[in-house]
């Protein structure tokens, strides 16, 4: 009793001192006399309503025994009544104190009166609940809450909540632990709510793995998944989520688009862990067949939505890479899964967060190396443009040359490249408010993002708003999130950038009067002219996303969840070319087509995705066993519909409305429709024993309308095991290794990016012909009712390490075999059709990934630290099996490559650039070309090596061999984060080594160039052969033949790219701001695509140039 009292007092030293003093003065010592055998003496005591003090004095008088008590404890002014005759002292005392809260005790020679000691009763059991938050007040999921010394435990839910039933003793200690955070111990006191704020450990590893369906504790998870925090993403790219992920993890590969550069309206092409599917040659697939699955807040979403997502709302992004992590998505998961979670509404008083970013986009033309006017004219002379054996013609040519030469002397040197470009400021604003109490929380956000492309007039505007509500009532909780997005994109009316690169610099842009020159003869028009006539090339969409979550925990550790998501997107695009556009300039007035000049194409698309799922989560803690079990049943329907119409004949360029057109273009309206449905049952289990031995298992039954009716349901599974060696007795508290986890997984996933109706036997109406008045329909294709998903066997072995408390390492080896690739099978035409879709092909992707981070220096008190991270990935790809139909495709391409009569520019591309070849045992990214010995210095012709080793001047498709691989051997990122008294500095680099590239822009700017009409690379003048006997890298300048794929242009591509730098500072570190309303006032500066070291000089951004981005941002929380 005293002890407890004292401990309580210890809480405040001042109070304690005062109490001690009181205690000393109040102890009353009545008398000090020896007592012997007093208990045997019979005494009597008869009192009525006498104080205890009097009664004791009476007894002392009779027995001679001293009484001692503390007046603080014992109220001696209470009135008592007693009738005792001839009793022992003991009996009298017992009788006397019976009705009081006091008792007595014989100590040596006196009797101590104290408050009755409570009997040793059971401790009070109570219910405890609470919320676990991290330092930023964000709820933490999966935190283990364990009653010390027992096996009673809970894990926090998605909102950071935990709840114990009536089983926690008062005075017990709850231990809160989470990987990467310092454990917290809380004594259970009077309150039944214990909220905890977790503090990060010095080294942060990672916490929970959000799989989109449920959350797993990272420590017990055996899959390969990488979680990137929102803050880290914003540090490397404050405008676009996809760039951010790319800069953080090398397995997330965004294909660099040499053609479209930084065009804000081109959606990126993404793949994870290599190319699994055969490229979309015949429209078998919808979109990019290698694209990973995107899950936003638990629901599948489009890449467009991810691309336009407000990065300030991101809580975390998790990349699910191996079977254990992604098999829960079954037939859609083979290409990997990207799980994006947005910030949920948090508890607290109303808070506002505001973000603004100003982006400066500057065109990056460093890869261009074009001739100036004088150089271009010189090149033309070398190319014999002004030479003719016919003297009459020669005279005309001389005149032409002299005219241009005079222009050059006059100083005409037009820099066409800069004409369509601009440096402009894009803006991004977003505001976020949130608050609420335990029962009800809310958040609302609004965002505006305007990306200004570097080509004049091209931009992309997104306005988005979101309202989230969270409501809890007893064991039920709900969350509702409604988002509205509006997007508007304009493409530049300046057309393709390549047109400007093609223009000769000796041509003036404006004439003497400052008017735009329309045409330069030879059907070459000033590309700036079309801008002056106006037009439209815009698109946009409106999207509404409604997500609802409900959760019910009828008993402890059991949770029943339900989710409903609906997304509706309406898109529209318009393209208008007025009648005075250059493409109509040479239609004479008497021509029938004159009236149909001007063209308006309008297209409209609608997308409705809905998904519903219901799940049960059960967590079992028993001794050292922890078992998480989830079962989720889900159904979804995706529907898209689109159509486009083209109208011709807009007499005036002012009539830029489709209704003003004269007539429809020939042919039918274009349209498509697709509906897919899917249903699935997922069961996932995670078991751990003593946090040492780990196991994951998942199974999914997946049904989809895209599969043939004979193969409606697919089963997918995964199994993973892991061992937390650091939790073994011999490793605990090791100074060298704080973490060592080994894990391995295997499992099947699928991919089904193919068109919706390939497996359904169906008829098509013949709409353009009738038979004697009757309509008819015919079978559209030989449907394969056994068609199924592509299957991928994923195998992964990995390890997670933490060394010397400063380094974390993550290593993964994988081997993925994709089977049953969709392929066209040739079939005997007597069955009625010549091809048939079958699951046949097989590819193999193998590789490894290393992720690491090091805390080189850290000084917490002064907020100083230096962190370095390094990532490396390697992937190799191999085709194991292909169909005959694809082999036939190779032959068809070869035939086209051989054809010398080719003039169609789109087909010419086939001859100039390497094409994909399907050969078993080769990679899909192999570069096929004819080996070349270079240019013969005698005649300037290229010497090729035939397959039999002999040399020839003739290019032949049969001599093509693999000359390289466009897939790098290694790629990755290096980055550093430095903190210094409130300043944060971040660098990110990406690199690739060991791959090749076919420098097609080089060959097309130096050799395959129409030197008479277009501007050329400077090297066409300086490095092409023109004197016999002089060695040259490029063939004769007078040789106008097409240079076909040759090993001469296969170059090793090693690259080191300075991809981003950012610096931020929180002004709240300044005294000035400390007492302001701001909790945080952060300013930052960020720069993207800063510079590149590369072994290859390639003209990048042919249709749309690349850009460098500088951005300034501020973030204020109050």
């Amino acid at each position, binding site marked *: 009793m005293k002890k407890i009292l004292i401990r309580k007092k210890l809480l405040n030293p001042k109070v304690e001192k005062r109490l001690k003093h009181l205690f000393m003065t109040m102890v009353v010592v009545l008398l000090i006399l020896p007592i012997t055998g007093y208990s045997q003496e019979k005494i009597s005591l008869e009192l009525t309503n006498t104080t205890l003090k009097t009664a004791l004095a009476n007894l002392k008088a009779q027995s001679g025994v001293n009484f001692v008590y503390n007046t603080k404890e014992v109220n001696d002014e209470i009135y008592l009544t007693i009738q005792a005759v001839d009793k022992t002292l003991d009996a009298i005392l017992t009788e006397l104190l019976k009705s009081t809260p006091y008792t007595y005790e014989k100590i040596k020679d006196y009797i101590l009166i104290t408050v009755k000691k409570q009997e040793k009763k059971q401790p009070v059991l109570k219910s405890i609940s609470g919320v676990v938050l991290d330092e930023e007040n964000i709820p933490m999921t999966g935190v283990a809450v364990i009653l010390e010394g027992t096996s009673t435990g809970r894990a926090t839910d998605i909102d950071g909540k935990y709840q114990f039933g009536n089983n926690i003793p008062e005075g017990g200690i709850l231990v809160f632990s989470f990987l990467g955070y310092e454990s917290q111990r809380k004594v259970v006191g009077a309150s039944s709510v214990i909220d905890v704020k977790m503090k990060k450990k010095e080294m942060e590893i990672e916490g929970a793995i959000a799989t989109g369906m449920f959350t797993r504790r990272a420590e017990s998870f055996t899959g390969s998944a990488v979680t990137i925090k929102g803050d880290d993403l914003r540090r490397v790219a404050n405008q676009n989520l996809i760039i951010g992920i790319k800069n953080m993890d090398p397995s997330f590969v965004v294909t660099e688009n040499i053609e479209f550069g930084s065009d804000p309206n081109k959606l990126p092409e993404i793949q994870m862990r290599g190319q699994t599917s055969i490229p979309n040659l015949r429209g078998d697939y919808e979109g990019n067949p290698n694209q990973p699955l995107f899950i936003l807040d638990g629901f599948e979403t489009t890449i467009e939505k991810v691309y336009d997502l407000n990065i300030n709302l991101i809580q975390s992004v998790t990349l699910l890479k191996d079977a254990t992590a992604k098999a829960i998505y079954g037939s859609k998961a083979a290409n990997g899964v990207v799980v994006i979670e947005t910030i949920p509404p948090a508890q607290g008083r109303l808070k506002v967060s505001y973000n603004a970013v100003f982006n400066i986009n500057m065109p990056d033309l460093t890869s261009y190396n074009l001739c100036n006017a004088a150089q271009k004219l010189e090149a033309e002379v070398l190319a014999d443009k002004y030479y003719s054996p016919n003297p009459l013609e020669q005279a005309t040519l001389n005149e032409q040359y002299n005219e241009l030469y005079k222009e050059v002397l006059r100083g005409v040197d037009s820099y066409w490249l800069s004409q369509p470009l601009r440096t402009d400021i894009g803006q991004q604003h977003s505001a976020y408010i949130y608050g609420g109490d335990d029962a009800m929380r809310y958040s609302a956000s609004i965002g505006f993002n305007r990306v200004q492309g570097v080509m004049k007039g091209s931009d992309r505007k997104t306005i988005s708003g979101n309202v989230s509500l969270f409501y809890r009532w007893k064991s039920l909780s709900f969350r509702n999130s409604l988002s509205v997005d509006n997007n508007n994109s304009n493409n530049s009316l300046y057309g393709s950038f390549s047109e400007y690169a093609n223009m000769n610099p000796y041509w003036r842009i404006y004439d003497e009067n400052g008017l735009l020159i329309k045409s330069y003869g030879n059907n070459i028009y000033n590309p700036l002219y079309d801008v002056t006539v106006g037009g439209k090339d815009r698109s946009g969409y409106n999207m509404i996303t409604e997500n609802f979550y409900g959760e019910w925990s*009828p*008993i402890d550790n*059991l949770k*029943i969840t339900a989710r409903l998501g609906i997304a509706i997107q309406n898109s529209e695009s318009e393209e208008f070319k007025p009648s005075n556009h250059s493409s109509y300039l040479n239609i004479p007035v008497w021509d029938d087509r004159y009236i149909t000049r001007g063209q308006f194409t309008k297209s409209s698309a609608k997308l409705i995705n809905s998904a519903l799922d*219901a799940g*049960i989560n059960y967590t079992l803690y028993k001794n050292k066993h922890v078992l998480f079990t989830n*079962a989720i*049943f889900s*159904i979804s329907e995706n529907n898209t*519909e689109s159509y486009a119409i083209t109208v011709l004949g807009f007499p005036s360029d002012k009539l830029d409305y489709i209704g003003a057109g004269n007539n429809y273009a020939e042919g039918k309206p274009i*349209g*498509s*429709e*697709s*509906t*897919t*449905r*899917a*249903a699935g*049952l997922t069961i996932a289990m995670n078991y751990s024993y003593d946090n040492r031995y780990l196991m994951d298992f998942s199974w999914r*039954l997946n*049904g*989809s*309308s895209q599969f043939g*009716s004979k193969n*409606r349901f697919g089963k997918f599974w995964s199994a993973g095991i892991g061992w937390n060696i650091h939790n073994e007795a011999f490793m605990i508290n090791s100074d060298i290794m704080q973490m060592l986890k080994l894990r391995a997984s295997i499992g099947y996933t699928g991919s089904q990016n193919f068109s*919706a*109706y390939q497996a*359904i*036997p*169906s*008829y*098509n*109406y*013949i709409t353009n*012909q*009738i*038979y*004697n008045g*009757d*309509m*008819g*329909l*015919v*079978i*559209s294709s*030989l449907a*394969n009712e056994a068609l199924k998903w592509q299957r991928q066997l994923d195998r992964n072995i990995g390890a997670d390490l933490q060394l010397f408390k400063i380094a974390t390492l993550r290593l993964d080896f994988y081997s993925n075999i994709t089977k049953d690739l969709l392929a066209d099978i*040739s*079939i*005997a*035409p*007597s*069955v*009625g*059709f*010549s091809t*048939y879709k079958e699951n046949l092909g097989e590819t193999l992707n193998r590789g490894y990934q290393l992720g690491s981070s090091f805390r080189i220096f850290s000084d917490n008190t002064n907020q100083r630290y230096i962190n370095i991270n390094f990532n490396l990935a390697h992937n190799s790809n191999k085709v194991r099996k292909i169909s005959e139909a694809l082999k036939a495709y190779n032959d068809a391409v070869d035939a086209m490559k051989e054809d010398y009569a080719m003039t169609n520019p789109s087909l010419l591309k086939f001859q100039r650039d390497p094409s994909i070849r399907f050969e078993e045992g080769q990679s899909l990214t192999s570069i096929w070309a004819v080996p070349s010995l270079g240019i013969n210095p005698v005649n300037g012709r290229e010497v090729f090596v035939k397959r039999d080793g002999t040399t020839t001047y003739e290019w032949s498709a049969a001599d093509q061999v693999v000359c390289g691989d466009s897939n790098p051997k290694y790629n990755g990122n290096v980055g550093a984060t430095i903190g210094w008294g409130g300043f944060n500095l971040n660098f990110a680099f990406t690199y690739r080594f060991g791959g090749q590239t076919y420098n097609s822009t080089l060959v097309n700017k130096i050799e395959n160039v129409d030197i008479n009409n277009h501007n050329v690379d400077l090297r066409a003048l300086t490095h092409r052969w023109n004197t016999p006997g002089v060695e040259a890298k490029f063939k004769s300048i007078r040789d106008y033949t097409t240079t076909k794929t040759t090993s001469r242009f296969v170059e090793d591509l090693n690259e080191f790219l300075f991809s981003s730098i950012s610096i931020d500072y929180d002004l709240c570190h300044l005294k000035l701001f400390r007492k302001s309303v701001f909790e945080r006032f952060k300013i930052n500066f960020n720069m993207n695509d800063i510079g590149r070291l590369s072994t290859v000089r390639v003209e990048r951004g042919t249709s749309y140039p690349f850009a460098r981005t500088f951005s300034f941002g501020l973030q204020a929380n109050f």
Partner: protein
Amino acid sequence: MRKHITYIIIIAVFLSLFSCNKWLDISPKTEIKESENFSNEQGYKDALTGVYLLLTNSSLYGRDLSYGLVDVLGRQYTDIPSSSMYYYLSNYDYSNQLSINLIDAVWNSAYNAIANLNTLISYIDDADPSLFTANNQEIIKGEAYGLRAFIHFDLLRLFGPSVKIGADNLAIPYVKTMGKELSPILTVNQVIDLIIADLQIAEDALKFDPIYEHSTINNWDDNWMRNRELKFNYYAVKLLQARVLLYKKDYSAALSAAEEVIGQTTYYWTPSSEITTTTVENRNRIFAQEMIFGLNIPSLRDDYSSWFSSSSALLKSDYYWGQTYETSLTGYGADYRYVYLTYYDPTAYKRYSLKLQQPESSISTYSRRLPLMRFTEAYYIAAECKLKTTGVSEAVPYINTVRSKRNIMIELSLDFTEAQLQNEIFKEYMKEFVCEGQLFYYYKRTDASSIMFYGGVFSKNKYVLPIPLSELANR
């Protein structure tokens, strides 16, 4: 309570999984699902119409199996320029890529039409009769079986060896099922037997055809039953039976089938006034009343003008036209088929066929129709059967009847030798079936050692067109 809830959820999940199968069955909007299409009568009608539309394809009867490829092989054209895609075929060079493309397209399109028929047949055989108006089920079934036999027979005559020398040699697959499973390549005789079997089913079903004289049913679906000559009707089945049986050399059976066609009264001789009319636009060049089966091809007017003109490919020299119609003989020059169905362009010195010409204002019953089976063929078959069985004297009258209707008033003698009369029958095939493709099949059936108007050396193995490589490679 809690246990109950768990059970209810588990049961609900499983129930919904079972009902999933149906839910996962989706109907495309731009296409009609096969099973849905055959859930009502209109679907059956549309699927059958679809086959007729496929037959109008230029690789099938819309060109190559009427006036195109087969007539080129039968040398109905002698002046094909070397720039034409038919040039190599007209010289029996089947290995040239242009020839291969044409031949492969015939094979592929024909089997595609057969696949469509097989799907229709598989559904109609088991269809619920209550779906159909009147006797439409029987009629659709009859037409489908009849067409399957019809297409297979022409494939047999192109890609199989001549029955005369290779009846037991492998010819073509007879495909009766829809799916990716291959049907075996059968011998000529086996194919013929299957054709005869299909035709028997067709004949029985088409006893309900309103065009059949002895049909006692009269509550037919009027609109669907219009223009029976554009559908594979009862008499088309009979005439095809006669064709096939003659090919099989079953003369008595062929004769009785031919006699039934000759004896009916629905089709009759085209009145000469319609042929000789001075209103050129109204001239009945296809002899519409005699057309037992033909196709409605809306684009025929344009197709005609692109293939038949003094500057086009499908030309026969004026001299050979003279030889064809024996214009040097007295009385033969008046043949309507020469006078009214060919045209000499005096400026270009070229003569070409007018049979398929479709002037803008021509009468609807003559226009946009491509004849494929003709009344007169029954006369020729009957004559040939009589010739082989009872002799020349009973055969001659059939030919004379035709000749008189065509305005050749000189009667053939009853004293002709068998060979002489056979030759007259051959001449009739040549004169009558211009643009109808039957002449080449005559050469092949009789295993003639030469082809008229072909100057080069003809080898009999040219009677067999090569089966496409894609077929052989994937078997």
